[in-house]
């Protein structure tokens, strides 16, 4: 009974459910924006890197390495509390989107690039020998194969980084964790945190299952 009272208190649940629902919506759209921006930027960077020009490769590799090395929380705090000193004031959600999609882009670039380098040279030669341009060969032949190779690590990374929207709680973004932890302080009950955990499961468990489908859809024997 004490367990249920602590983690699944009905009255507390009813009281904070509306707040939590709007927080879920916030987490969802933040995640969606971060995914789209991060993955497309990562893909674009990997494509630029495939051109093999040092003046493109150098900054891309630097961006990917730094983006993967820095803890996102540090960057979020610097952007949120440091940039106003330069006269640049960004809202909490803007900082979260900027930093997390940047971090996702850094990882995605490396994953797409690893996929591109794993495509056999003969695939490029077959494309070019049939008169396809570099860009056509990249988009029609090399990238689809690179993306297929990259899907499992990409899905893992995308999930890990969208879950980091919880870091928004330290800069006042009204996403699931911040709403439920303030509800926890007000109510003195752990129930809102349970609700947060359930909400995260409701969002990310289907995403994990969807990714399994995706992996199967994109697999073909080589």
């Amino acid at each position, binding site marked *: 009974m004490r367990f249920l009272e602590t983690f699944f208190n009905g009255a507390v649940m009813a009281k904070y459910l509306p707040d939590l629902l709007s927080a879920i919506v916030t987490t969802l759209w933040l995640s969606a924006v971060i995914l789209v921006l991060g993955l497309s930027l990562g893909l674009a960077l990997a494509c630029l890197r495939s051109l093999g020009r040092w003046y493109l490769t150098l900054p891309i590799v630097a961006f990917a390495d730094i983006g993967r090395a820095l803890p996102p929380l540090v960057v979020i705090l610097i952007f949120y509390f440091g940039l106003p000193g330069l006269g640049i004031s960004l809202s909490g959600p803007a900082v979260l989107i900027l930093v997390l999609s940047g971090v996702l882009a850094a990882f995605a670039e490396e994953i797409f690039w690893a996929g591109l380098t794993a495509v056999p040279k003969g695939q490029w*030669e077959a494309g*070019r020998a*049939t008169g396809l341009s570099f860009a056509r060969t990249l988009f029609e032949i090399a990238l689809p194969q690179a993306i297929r190779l990259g899907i499992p690590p990409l899905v893992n990374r995308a999930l890990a980084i969208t879950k980091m929207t919880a870091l928004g709680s330290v800069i006042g973004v009204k996403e699931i964790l911040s709403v439920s932890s303030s509800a926890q302080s007000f109510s003195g009950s752990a129930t809102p945190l349970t609700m947060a955990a359930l909400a995260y499961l409701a969002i990310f468990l289907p995403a994990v299952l969807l990714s399994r489908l995706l992996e199967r859809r994109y697999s073909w024997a*080589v």
Partner: protein
Amino acid sequence: MTAPSPVHQRPMLEINRLEKRFGDTEVLKSIDLRVQPGELVFVIGPSGSGKSTMLRCCNRLEEPSAGTILLDGEHVTDCRGAALDRMRLKIGMVFQGFHLYPHKSVLDNVMLAQLRALKRPKAEAKARAMEMLSHVGLAHKADAMPSELSGGQQQRVAIARALALDPKVMLFDEPTSALDPELVGSVLKVMRQLRDEGMTMLVVSHEMGFAREAADRVVFMDGGVVVEAGPPEAIFGNPQSDRLKSFLARVSKAEE
């Protein structure tokens, strides 16, 4: 009335003083070779003799260090960018490793360059692809994925993919070397059929039996130079140079 001037047929493929260096290594030392329209020229030679490099220079997968290559009188070696892509449409190439696109069906493999490089309308590209697939005896595999095919079937699809672009010349880079022995025949059969239809072909291969019966001319390369060239009867029946003699002896010993 003036007498008609003698007909000088223009070679379909003309290689002039072709040189290729990788760093300090000279792989090709001034190669001259002409392939007449409808001719099947067979290139033999020990591994490392530069024959594959020579073939790959013909469509600039390998960049020549010096020399010129002409296709039907047009410079291949001067082409840049989009002009080179257009030139490559006229030069079909078949690789030792097939290199079919694993994420596309057989039909899409044969259609891709028709659509994206030749800019053929889809219906026309599909009709042409099916025609070429029937030509190599694989129309019934149009919807299969490459991984579902045997090596010999994959190589025939690769030949169809090249032919669908209506090339003026076909380059074959050891087309049967990666195949199980029992599958070699099906690919050679398609090549013989092509030859009989008048396709101009330059073939690098170790299939001496096929060279003997199907080639118009055999070129023996060694150490980056053409050592001897002539009709198959002469090359195999009456080799002049010591290098060719010892090469043929080694090959026939290996085949026993």
